[in-house]
């Protein structure tokens, strides 16, 4: 079970097409993007809206490059900008491109079995390993008993305060796997704002050539 949980979010490679909707005090807005990932390399390209189409992010290892179509420049993102929010959403750039190394960074224990929010779930508490470079005090993951799909993930600081939470829903079968296609992320101190990610297409273990993840390719 622990293994299953750890492997929920990982695969050798994937291509995803999704839309991200942000609603906050500035009003709602929506972006659509395509994300390629292979090992520790990730490429994100924005397709709409029109004024941001072509913007792309390339991550190799821990280095991140940003391509700006408007000025036709590629800029390497300094460490200080990786924690800024991605497109004003509740996700950071770091979230977008980082791999989840759950088993590497966390020890997983089962903490509860039963009903949460009217749904029967297995609840796991993930505690960061002593040397893991993560800021969280703990993560709590609730997995539906019915289809063994994630339902809710909470990010807590060391004092046990909930800092942000993600809700999963709309489970669909794609490419032979059952996956949640709707993710909603919310920061605990901004209850009126949230970011919703909906996957239109999601394929795993697809062959992707290595030069997809190169600087020249960013500009396409």
């Amino acid at each position, binding site marked *: 079970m622990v293994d299953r949980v750890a492997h929920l979010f990982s695969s050798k490679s994937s291509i995803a097409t999704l839309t991200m909707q942000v609603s906050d005090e500035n009003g709602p807005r929506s972006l659509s993007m395509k994300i390629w990932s292979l090992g520790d390399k990730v490429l994100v390209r924005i397709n709409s809206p029109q004024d941001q189409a072509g913007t792309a992010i390339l991550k190799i*290892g821990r280095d991140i490059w940003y391509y700006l179509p408007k000025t036709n420049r590629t800029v390497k993102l*300094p*460490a200080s900008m990786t924690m800024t929010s991605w497109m004003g959403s509740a996700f950071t750039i770091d979230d977008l491109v980082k791999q989840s190394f759950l088993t590497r960074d966390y020890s997983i224990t089962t903490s509860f079995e039963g009903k949460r929010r009217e749904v029967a779930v297995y609840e796991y508490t993930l505690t960061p390993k002593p*040397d893991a*470079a993560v800021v969280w*005090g703990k993560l709590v993951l609730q997995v539906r008993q019915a289809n063994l799909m994630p339902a809710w993930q909470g*990010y807590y*600081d*060391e004092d046990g305060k909930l800092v942000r939470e993600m809700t999963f829903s709309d489970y669909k079968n794609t490419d032979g796997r059952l996956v949640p296609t709707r993710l909603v992320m919310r920061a605990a101190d901004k209850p009126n704002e949230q970011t919703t990610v909906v996957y239109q297409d999601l394929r795993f273990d697809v062959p992707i050539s290595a030069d997809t993840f190169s600087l020249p390719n960013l500009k396409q």
Partner: protein
Amino acid sequence: MTSLLLLAKISWRNLWRNPRGTLLTALALGLGLALLLISLGLLDGGHEQMVADGVRLGTGHVVIQSKGFQDTGSQELLLPVSAVSAAEDMLLSAAMQPLVRGVSPRLVATGLLSSAANNDGVRIIGVIPRQERTVSLIPQRIVAGSYLNDDKPSGVVIGSELARKLEVKEGSKVVLMTQPVRQPGTEAKTQPEGEMQSTLLRVTGIFTTGLRAVDANVIHLPLPVAQTLLGLPNHQVTQIAVVLGREGDSLAVATALRKRLIGAPVEVLTWRQSMPMLAQILRLDHAFNYIMNGVVLAMVGLGILNTILMRVLERRYEFGVCKALGLRPIQLAIMIVGESLALTTISLALGLLLGLSVQHHFATSGLDLRWIFKPGLNPALVFDPILYSRLSLERIVWSVGIVFVMATVLSFYPALKAARTDLPGALKVL
């Protein structure tokens, strides 16, 4: 000869014929001297403290760093290992030992510190705790937790402003992320820089220096951790900060180090060169003090002038009588001068007693200036709200000398005048 002795005796007894007047005068003069000593002590002390504190919140009296670091601050400029050993050897040598108070090698870089709540850009300083304690003021300004020590290898010490922004406290987790340093000899375009590294740290202590820039930006962590983070396999450092026992030795020590390291791509700077802002602030403070001392001296001078002139004037009658009784003008003059010398000596003794004891109190317990400031904030002059007085022997001698000369010279004029007092005029006072 005997007449001189006689005159002296008369002088002395004259003083005590009017004990209240004499004492009041002595008190006035003594108070003047005491005020001078106290104000000099406090102003000098404040100034020295500013240097000491400023230097210890920065890069020490003398700093050795890679050539060009002062201008660019680029974290890629590291000290060659050979230079580091040469410098350290020299600083530990018998010749330098009595001058040097502390030596601290440091690695300086920038990075991002994140907590669960927030993140911020920081100035990373990798240090050897034991050595940094002899050099920096930060270990002494810890307000929560404790400074780095060897049994907390992944500890980090941050400023109170930063702690507030990140919403962390002692013991909290933080993650530090930074760009490793490009190794010398690699081309910028052909080889990408090393991967960004991040590492987990625990806040062991929080400090407050009063300088917002420091409290919001600077973090200290163990040198080995910083070196690993920045991908430095050769255990390199950015700078060596040196704190001396006396500010006056800065130039000499810097020159000696420069000679020793000639040919190496390093720069050896005194604090005036590495912290020109501090040097300027000190020059301004010096100017201030100059004006203040001048005014205090002038006021004390006026007080002395007033006291002595009046004292002499009131005794015209007396002098008239002396002359009528046959005292020669020159003898009268000597008598007056003698009296004034005696009086001045008593006053100086009183003044020294009062002044030095008050000054000693300020030197040990300090003068707490906190009632002047709004609570919580220090002026950016970089000093402790508790002002410690420092009075050098030179200053004491100078002060005593000035007061003595003033008092004595001021009594010559009336002495001369008195010697020429016309009898009828003087006696008319009655």
